[in-house]
C-alpha cells in the first residue's frame, strides 16, 4: 500500500491509499465541464486504476454520468458542452486536437443505462463493431461473436437464436448483449453508465458477477446511484456531489470510514 496526496477542489489535499504496482489506466486532471455557462463538473481529478473496478456514486444530477462520458468523449455530441482540463488514457491527452475520437472509442467502450441493442439479430449486434473496423465474414467473425458472447456470459442462452431479433431477449440479456458488443471491438477500458438501473435484482447480480470476471482483462468504471452496488462490486469508489469530487478511495475504507462529513451523510442516507 502506498499513500498519494490527491489535490481536490478548494485546494484541499486528500491522502488516498493505493495498492502498489497498479498502473493508472486513465485519469482526469482538474477537469471542468460546462453546459453553456452552467458548471456541471468542477475541476475533478481522479485516477482509474488498471484492472480494477472504479465506482462513481452520487445523488441524481451530481454530474456522474457527464463525468463518465468524458472518458470516451461522448460529451462531444452535446453542442453546448465545453471541457476544461485534461483526461488521459495511458498518459495520452484525450482532449488534444490530434486525437482520433473513433480510435479512442475503440479502446474505451461504453455500456448505457438503458440496454440499447440495435434493431438487428443477436449475431449482427455483436458483429457490428468488428464489421465496422474491417472484419470479414470469412475471417473468423463467428469465432469473435462466440468468444464475446461467452465472455459476457450470454452464449449458452442465445446460441440457438443468434439469427433472431435482439429485442426478443430479456432486459438483462440485452444488457449483456450490449457488453458483448463492446467486447467485440477489443477495448481496454469499459465504461458502464448505470448499467443495472433498468434491470431486476437477478439480472443485476449476473452483471455484477460478470464485471468481476471482466476486470481480469479490462479496466472498468461504473456509474451507479445504487450504493449497495458500489459497495459490493467495486474496488475503488469516488463520491461526487454537485459536480465536485468529495472523496475517493478504496471502496472498503470509504464505506467503513468516510473521511468527509458529506460522504458519511450520503452513505447513511442523510444527505441534503
Amino acid at each position, binding site marked *: 500500500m502506498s499513500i498519494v496526496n490527491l489535490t481536490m477542489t478548494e485546494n484541499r489535499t486528500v491522502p488516498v491509499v493505493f495498492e502498489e504496482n497498479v498502473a493508472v489506466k486513465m485519469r482526469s486532471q482538474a477537469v471542468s465541464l460546462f453546459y453553456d455557462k452552467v458548471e456541471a463538473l468542477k475541476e475533478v481529478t481522479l485516477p482509474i486504476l488498471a484492472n480494477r473496478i472504479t465506482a462513481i456514486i452520487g445523488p441524481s444530477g451530481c454530474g456522474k454520468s457527464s463525468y463518465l462520458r468524458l472518458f470516451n468523449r461522448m460529451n462531444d455530441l452535446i453542442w453546448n458542452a465545453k471541457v476544461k482540463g485534461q483526461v488521459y488514457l495511458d498518459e495520452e491527452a484525450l482532449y488534444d486536437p490530434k486525437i482520433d475520437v473513433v480510435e479512442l472509442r475503440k479502446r474505451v467502450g461504453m455500456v448505457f443505462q438503458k440496454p440499447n441493442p440495435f434493431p438487428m439479430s443477436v449475431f449482427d449486434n455483436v458483429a*457490428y463493431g468488428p464489421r465496422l473496423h474491417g472484419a470479414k465474414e470469412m475471417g473468423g467473425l463467428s469465432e469473435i461473436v462466440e468468444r464475446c458472447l461467452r465472455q459476457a456470459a450470454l452464449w449458452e442462452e442465445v446460441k440457438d437464436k443468434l439469427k433472431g431479433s435482439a429485442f426478443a431477449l430479456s432486459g438483462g440479456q440485452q444488457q449483456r448483449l450490449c457488453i458483448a458488443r463492446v467486447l467485440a471491438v477489443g477495448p481496454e477500458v469499459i465504461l458502464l453508465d448505470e448499467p443495472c438501473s433498468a434491470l431486476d435484482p437477478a439480472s443485476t447480480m449476473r452483471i455484477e458477477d460478470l464485471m468481476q470476471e471482466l476486470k481480469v482483462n479490462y479496466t472498468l468504471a461504473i456509474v451507479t446511484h445504487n450504493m449497495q452496488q458500489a459497495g459490493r462490486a467495486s474496488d475503488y469508489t469516488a463520491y461526487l456531489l454537485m459536480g465536485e469530487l468529495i472523496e475517493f478511495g478504496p471502496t472498503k475504507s470509504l464505506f467503513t470510514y468516510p473521511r468527509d462529513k458529506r460522504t458519511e451523510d450520503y452513505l447513511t442516507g442523510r444527505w441534503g
Partner: protein
Amino acid sequence: MSPTAGKLEGRHFRSRNATQTAAFIFLGACVLLILVPVIYIIVYTIVNGAGAISWDFLTQLPKQRGLQGGIFSAIVGSFYLMVGVVVFALPVGIMAAIYLHEYARQGPLVRLINLSIVNLAGVPSIVYGLFGLSFFVLMLKMGSSLLAASLTLSCMALPVVVTASREALATVPNSYREGSLALGASRWQTIVRVVLPQAWPGILTGLVLAVSRAAGETAPILITGTAFTAILPTSLFDQFNALPYHLYVVATQIPNMPKSTQWGITLVLLVMVLLFNLTAIILRIRLRAQRKKWGL
C-alpha cells in the same frame, strides 16, 4: 328502491347526452363531406372514361390531334417524369435531410432553414414553372426538354421529400446513435448502418406524396418541356407529351373531342398515380414487416 338510487343520475345528463349526439352527427357529416367529392370524382371518371379504355388507346400514338389513335406518348412522358422526380429529388432530398438533422448544429439558422423548406412546399406550382423556365430552360440552356421539366418538378417535390425525411430521421431513437458511436463508428457509418434503415418507411411515404402530386401537375411542365406531340422522346433534351398536358390540350384546344376520350385520359392518369402509390405501399409494408420481425 334503495335510498341511494338516483344519485348517479346527473341533473345535466339529458342535455349533455344531446350535445354528445349532436357532436357525433356533426363530425360524421364532416367526414362525409370529405368523402363525397373524392368518391364522386372516382366514380364519375370510371363511368365516363372506362368506355374509352382499350388496348389500342393505351398503346397507340395519338393521330389527328388526338381525335384518333391512343395516348401512348403521353403515358410514356408521364412515366419518364415520375422516374425523373424519383431520380433527382430522392437522393438530394435525403442528403439534405441528413445534413439538417444529423450534422448541422441545431440552432436558429437550422430552424429558419427548416421553416423555409416547409413553406416552400406551399408555393404555387406555376411559380416553380417560371423558375424552371428561367433557370433550367434559359439560363442553363437545356431548352424546352424532358430534363428541364423533370428538374422543375423535382424542385417542387424536394420540400416534401426533405420534410418527410427529416421527420423520419427524428423518430429514430438517439440511443441507437449513441450505441453505434460509442463502438467507434463514424457519424456516416452510424447513419448508413443504423439510422437510415429505421427511417426508410417515413422517407418513402414522403416520396410517394411528392411524386403523386408532381405527376398530376400541368403548369410547371407546360412551360418547361411539353409539346402536344405523338413523337416519343429519345433523349433527355427532347420535348415530350404528358398525361395532364395532353388532357389539358384535348379538353380546351381540340373541337369535337369526344367526352369519353377526355375522361379516359383522366382515368389513366389516376390509375398510374395509384399504381405508383401501390408499389410504395407494398414496399413500406415489407419494410414494416421486417421491423416487426425485430420486435419494433
